């Protein structure tokens, strides 16, 4: 068990740079999830930690030892791959034992360690089977077992759940979380699935285009997103964005078109007229009587999910003014609320649920 430290880690493929300097320190036993859209460099980063990709610049250390020039096997890590990468011709037992066998571990100890991992993962009955005789979830467990038996300083997961069906994914997610808690092994986990990221992580690294946009705990990321990208990426359905500005009196906020007005003490008071990008999450809007409304929504489509109802529509005045404001605006309502397309919905924003961003830089200005 050990801490992992990344300092200014960059990756270049010839002229193109795909990772632009990542700095993060992962504490012993911490579960850190790297999340981001495909092609953001998250897998590349993980593979650099694993030693499967060369580090172009910066340094990575595991347990206080700089591992830049070490082979994967010398880094004391174990990796779980997206497609499991089980050796197809070996039994489950041999798959798990292979690393130990190469390391020259005595036979009795191999059997004992594999046995222990198999018990932990409920694989005991399957030890003699070949990978192709296993279901997806079982293969995933074997891949986990292969990582566990080696008792490494750190686990690296590369989208380990994306080949499973939805139900199994939820189940394995819980198992991974439980296992990591029990073992207390430092873990670095890559995924593009924000639900996985939110549920598993002690800390999130939200990556976009090779840059770590925000490194914080899941709730921190959810409640105080540092940038428009993070705000839009974390949370489902995604956050709604509206252009707006600080009103001339400096104490209220104007959504362009003048649909909604809200007098509140602003952290940015005195910046009258400043243009803003206002973000509000679908779940932070409540239907209210017209007189109390912050904004109105003309519903176009309603999705009933049972517990929740997702209502999609557009703000009345933004329908045809300019391109940027024609976006769909989504509200998450409790399932008990009955609405239908064509209705006009009066909504109020929950206190403190407005996120203000600078429209040019995309950085967070304040929450409101």
């Amino acid at each position: 068990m050990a801490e992992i430290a990344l300092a200014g880690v960059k990756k270049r493929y010839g002229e193109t740079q795909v990772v632009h300097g990542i700095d993060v320190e992962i504490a012993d036993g911490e579960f850190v999830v790297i999340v981001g859209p495909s092609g953001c460099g998250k897998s590349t980063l993980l593979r650099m930690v694993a030693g499967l990709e060369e580090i172009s610049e910066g340094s990575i250390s595991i347990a206080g030892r700089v591992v830049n020039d070490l082979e994967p096997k010398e880094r004391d890590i174990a990796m779980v791959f997206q497609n499991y990468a089980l050796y197809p011709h070996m039994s489950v037992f041999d798959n798990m034992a292979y690393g130990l066998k190469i390391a020259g571990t005595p036979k009795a100890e191999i059997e004992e360690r594999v046995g222990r991992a198999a018990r932990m993962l409920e694989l005991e009955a399957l030890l003699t089977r070949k990978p192709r005789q296993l279901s997806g979830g079982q293969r995933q467990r074997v891949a986990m077992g292969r990582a566990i038996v080696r008792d490494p300083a750190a686990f690296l997961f590369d989208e380990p759940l994306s080949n499973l069906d939805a139900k199994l994914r939820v189940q394995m997610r819980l198992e991974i979380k439980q296992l990591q808690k029990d073992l207390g092994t430092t873990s670095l986990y890559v995924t593009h699935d924000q639900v996985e990221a939110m549920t598993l992580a002690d800390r999130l690294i939200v990556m976009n285009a090779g840059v770590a946009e925000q490194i914080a705990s899941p709730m921190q990321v959810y409640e105080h997103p540092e940038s428009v990208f993070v705000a839009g990426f974390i949370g489902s359905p995604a956050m709604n964005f509206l252009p707006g500005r600080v009103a001339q009196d400096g104490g209220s906020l104007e959504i362009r078109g003048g649909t909604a007005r809200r007098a509140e003490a602003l952290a940015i008071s005195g910046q009258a007229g400043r243009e803003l990008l206002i973000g509000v999450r679908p779940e932070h809007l409540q239907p209210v009587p017209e007189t109390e409304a912050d904004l109105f929504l003309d519903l176009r489509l309603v999705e009933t999910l049972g517990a929740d109802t997702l209502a999609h529509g557009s703000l009345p005045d933004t329908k045809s003014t300019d391109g940027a404001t024609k976006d769909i605006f989504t509200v998450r309502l409790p399932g008990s609320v009955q609405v239908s397309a064509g209705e006009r919905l009066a909504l109020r924003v929950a206190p403190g649920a407005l996120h203000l961003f600078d429209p040019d830089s995309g950085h967070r200005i304040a929450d409101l």
Partner: protein
Amino acid sequence: MVERRPITTFITHAVLLLGVLILAFPIWVTFVASTHAPSALASGVVPLWPGDLFLENYSLALGKGLAASGGVPVGRMLFNSLIMALAIAIGKIAISLIAAYAIVYFRFPFRMLCFWTIFVTLMLPVEVRILPTFEVVAQLGMLNSYVGLSVPLIASATATFLFRQFFLTVPDELAEAARIDGAGPLRFFRDILLPLSRTNIAALFVILFIYGWNQYLWPLLITTDESFYTIVMGIQRMVTVADAEPQWHLVMATAMLAMLPPVVVVVAMQRLFVKGLVETEK
């Protein structure tokens, strides 16, 4: 076919039976001829039912051979052919496995050039380079030896290419997982890649064994010593005797014997062979 009518069933079977007859008839004639006395064949009318000299003819061919064509016993020629075919098949597989491994898994200067060079030689049949090869083999003093019979035929672009294609289908993650498990290149090759290639190796072995067994021109060129004659070229020598009637009954017996080993290899490895051609075990 979705349609199932008696008439179509009849026609398809008739066509199949006709095909079998056309293919099998010469072999039947060969077998029948090998069981008769020489006089029965010299008369011009080929008998269609086996005679009673099966044991005599075959033991004569196996043990003594034809006096008129050097008297090399068929047993000896069979043995030579077996050695040559095995050496070629095993040698080809071993070399092409290693070559394909290098091309697919290692990054070295001129890697693609190496691959294309190998690939281009696919276009050159043995016969095109047979004279220069003969010259080299002669200079090296390898005429009339098993080494001379097999080594010049061992390099195989086809097998290298096939193994390369197979290796490319093996997921990269497998190699990476092995690296993380601490397996070096040789270990990975032995523990992971070889077992995965098992069915491919079996399929290639069948093909290459038959290729080696059927070599005709090359052994004809480089063997002058009768004790290194192979059976396929031996048959030809039996027919072109100088001052005598060809001993057809013995020629036919020899031909039957020459056909047997490839058949045995195909039948024995059929299951693996088909598996190797149709499925890749991953």
